[in-house]
């Protein structure tokens, strides 16, 4: 590891074990999006669970709000290097969503998330179950602002935050792991911040 002449850290050592490699802590909540912000009113919103063309479950906003709601406080890590501690979310875990669709086991091992605006991201089912992920509709006890993905965003906080897709509208079970939007633009297929899987080719 080549030492940079004259470079001094301004950060304290505290909480370094909570910060994945190459990340820094921000108090702010930056907005990153590849294009214009999507604005879907909840009256027009629905969430679907599909396998190929087969519909496994579909919820309107009203129906979705009646599903089991779970609160979660977690750190989040963006591939653009910022980490934010103790973000508070509320929504429906993917476990509860599958239960609501009457699924006792996932039909495949991979999922593609589909969003308003055409954004997609691919995930292992194993990264979504056992309470690891949710469809979040509240941030810090308020509806998620549209710039941060409201009315609903996927939350998979143990992976880089591009996996926590904004404006999510559907989860599709797929047979093979297929790159989504950023994953086909040079970003890592899995995206584990603790292994610093930022870009294609990272271990």
């Amino acid at each position, binding site marked *: 590891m080549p030492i940079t002449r004259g470079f001094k850290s301004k950060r304290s050592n505290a909480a370094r074990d909570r910060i994945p490699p190459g990340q820094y802590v921000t108090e*702010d909540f930056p907005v990153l999006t590849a*294009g*214009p912000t999507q604005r879907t009113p909840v009256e027009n919103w629905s969430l679907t669970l599909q396998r190929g063309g087969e519909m496994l479950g579909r919820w309107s906003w009203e129906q979705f709000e009646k599903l089991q709601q779970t609160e979660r406080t977690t750190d989040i890590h963006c591939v653009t*290097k910022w980490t934010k501690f103790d973000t508070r979310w509320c929504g429906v875990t993917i476990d509860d969503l599958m239960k609501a669709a009457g699924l006792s086991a996932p039909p495949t091992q991979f999922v593609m998330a589909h969003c308003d605006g*055409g954004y997609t991201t691919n995930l292992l089912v194993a990264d979504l179950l056992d309470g690891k992920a949710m469809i979040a509709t509240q941030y810090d006890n308020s509806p998620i602002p549209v710039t941060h993905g409201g009315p609903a965003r996927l939350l998979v906080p143990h992976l880089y935050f591009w996996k926590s897709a904004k404006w999510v509208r559907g989860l599709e079970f797929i047979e093979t792991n297929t790159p989504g*939007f950023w994953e086909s*633009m*040079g970003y890592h297929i899995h995206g584990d911040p603790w292994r610093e899987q930022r870009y294609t080719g990272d271990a």
Partner: protein
Amino acid sequence: MLRDWQLATVAAIRDETPSVRTIAFSLPQWTGHLAGQHVDVRLTTDDGYQAERSYSIASPSGRTALIEITVERIADGEVSPFLTAQLALGDTIELRGPLGGYFTWRPDNPAPLMLIAGGSGIVPLMSMLRTRTKAANRPPARLLYSSRQFEEIIYRSELDRLVTTNDGFSLNTALTRGAPANWSGETRRVDGDMLAKYTFPAAQAPHNFVCGPTSFVETVADRLVALGHQENAIKTERFGPTGEKR
């Protein structure tokens, strides 16, 4: 593409404004990049702490001998004060890239090129303009560029020079915090009226690249949609604080 960390050597330093510096690096290997891509840099303290940041490439695309980044000093930042004040000629830092494959422009793209920048958001767009200038066939291009003050306009003399080449490039500038007496540009934040006046009409199917602070990009992208541009023809890069502390 080569994405391993390399030791980059500072080959040239150029101050663009009082708080913005361009640094040119020579690299052991560079396979070439696209205009709009970025690099990651990594700095290491003597006790092993490492800081990483991403910076847009400012130099034109291709397999150039040197690659340039342009860095704005963030007063309370950890990396940008070091890069803009302490890093000296001949120093080495770790760097990898090119990275990012969406906010990119290729010179063989014949669509009109619309560039809209706020502050240091000009950097990846300057790479596009420099790439265009090197190209055999140049699509029409326009830049709408908002800065706070005259002294903070990055690449000012180069942009003025590009306008005089009369090769289909036009420049409009806005200053948001006061202007010199002889200023002929706009003197307010970029808004819908300004975009309607200075951007290519949606009917010409331009490619729009918008880069700047979050609130700037939010405004511009929303107004471009309202002006009838296809969402997938509006590519954005946002940076900086949102002011949202929650």
